[in-house]
């Protein structure tokens, strides 16, 4: 068992060919298209054009994804915290059976749900009016940046909560009980004792959510139609309307950079943790 198994390499080859042909090759293609000028030399001209046309959308995308990620983290911590620390059994049972529902719902279905729910005359505003919380004249459509954030958070909170609640369930209950016995409130136990022990899981969940939200095309197209919009929609527009692969790929590289920055933060945190350990 010292030498690598020849059979093993043979068995894994088809999968590697598939990744190479359908992921690595197109990735190289996108980098080449983004960095070469029509003549063939290297240049940043496509980035300049992308920046001139879409600088607002770049910031808009960053804003949407960062805010959605932070809100997802906040709500997941609250729900997982209640599931772990609550002393009301019926609340835990009810919450556990509720929170998972959007987990496997496709983004496009979530987008269609929100497209009707958050509209000016949607079920949300109608319910508020029926409950007397709002006058019909005060209702506004949420189908803009707020709609995108709401859809993303609605879809991603169950995923991160599932990971987080699992991690919280596996930490040593004795530390929690010790904190409670010393008179710490549950909020303080959650923030000072539980969260530091599950920070790694939370970070993984949020990094995955960040990249997922950066890649979704259907939600920004269906929930918020007008300008400003997210980079995924701009890329689709450059291709479908102008066949402009160069600018689209420059925008693509910008989205790789955003994903890469987050991955870098994650890796740095990991390295720091290993140095400490």
């Amino acid at each position: 068992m010292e030498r690598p198994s020849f059979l093993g390499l043979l068995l894994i080859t088809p999968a590697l060919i598939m990744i190479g042909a359908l992921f690595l090759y197109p990735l190289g293609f996108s980098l080449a298209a983004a960095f070469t000028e029509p003549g063939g030399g290297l240049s940043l001209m496509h980035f300049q054009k992308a920046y001139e046309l879409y600088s607002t959308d770049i910031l808009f995308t960053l804003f949407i994804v960062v805010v959605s990620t932070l809100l997802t983290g906040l709500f997941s911590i609250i729900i997982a915290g209640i599931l772990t620390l609550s002393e009301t059994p019926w609340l835990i049972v009810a919450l556990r059976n509720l929170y998972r529902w959007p987990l496997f719902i496709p983004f496009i279905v979530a987008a269609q749900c929100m497209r009707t729910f958050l509209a000016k005359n949607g079920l949300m505003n109608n319910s508020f009016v029926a409950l007397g919380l709002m006058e019909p004249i005060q209702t506004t459509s949420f189908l803009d940046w707020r709609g995108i954030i709401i859809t993303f958070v609605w879809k991603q909170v169950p995923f991160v909560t599932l990971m987080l609640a699992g991690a919280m369930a596996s930490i040593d209950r004795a530390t929690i009980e010790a904190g409670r016995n010393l008179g710490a409130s549950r909020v303080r136990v959650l923030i000072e004792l539980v969260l530091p022990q599950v920070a790694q899981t939370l970070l993984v969940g949020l990094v995955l959510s960040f990249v997922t939200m950066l890649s979704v095309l259907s939600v920004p197209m269906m929930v918020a139609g007008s300008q400003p919009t997210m980079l995924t929609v701009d890329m689709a527009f450059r291709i479908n309307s102008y066949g402009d692969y160069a600018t689209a790929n420059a925008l693509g590289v910008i989205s790789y950079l955003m994903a890469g920055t987050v991955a870098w933060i994650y890796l740095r945190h990991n390295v720091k943790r290993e140095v400490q350990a």
Partner: protein
Amino acid sequence: MSGKSPSSPMSAALDLSGGQPSVPHVSMKSGKVWTFGSTALKIAGLAVFAFLLFGPLANLALWSVAERWYTPFKLPVSYGLRYWEVVFRPTGDAMSSLATSVTIACLTVLVALAVSIPSGYALARLRLPWRTALMILFLLPQAFPSVAIYINVARVFYSIGLSGTITGVVLVHAAHGLVYSVWIAAAAFAAVDRDLELAARNIGASPLRTFFTVTLPLAAPGIMASAIFVFLESLDEFTGTFFVGVPQVTTLPLLLYNASMGGNYQIASITALILLVPSVVFMIVIERFLKADVLSKVGQ
């Protein structure tokens, strides 16, 4: 649960004071008011949470049975199943999209299993160089902003005649689902007891026969789970199909998108409900296929 038992007398004592142990020496009367208030608050919070969770789905269900619904009315003006009839008409667009979607999803599962069963076995049982790097390589298509990849896949496919074909869409879906199929297959093989394989070899079975009569059947539930993951992923996939499949290949998500952008909310909502069924069924049955011993080995 066993870790909880020593603390249960304490938490029972805490519940008497309404789950707020940090308030000492409350009199019985104010304690009761406090308990009632806290319970009411919890019920109200849960109700708001349930509304935000199910409100969007309720709106979808309402639209699917609304024959007429326009602005000043809070609820549909008239209900009916007319649009369900339109969707389920055998000659309709929806039925052909459903058939296309299911065909693509089944082919995607076949392709994904054909490459992931051998590689899952290799990753679990055989010695491979840079094993961790290989595992991460399969994760990359999911961990990268995919739109930029798909536009280039579409461009490459166009030059070799694969764009707008079922084959092209199946390949894109299979590459996207590869992380699930390879990682879960590897975990399923890793969870199979090695002694059982050795026992089979000892009584004279060939390595190939051992694999097909011992290892593969034992890993089958895990592989089944990975197949379900890939099937759902393919059924729900929108972005890849949007770039590679158009205009010839119309799957259910694309039909939903076109109907919704065209303002036909009834058709869009019914299509969305069709897509919801497998997702919800899966959420309920997943624990039956994905056992804890396999789950704990995923990604290792």
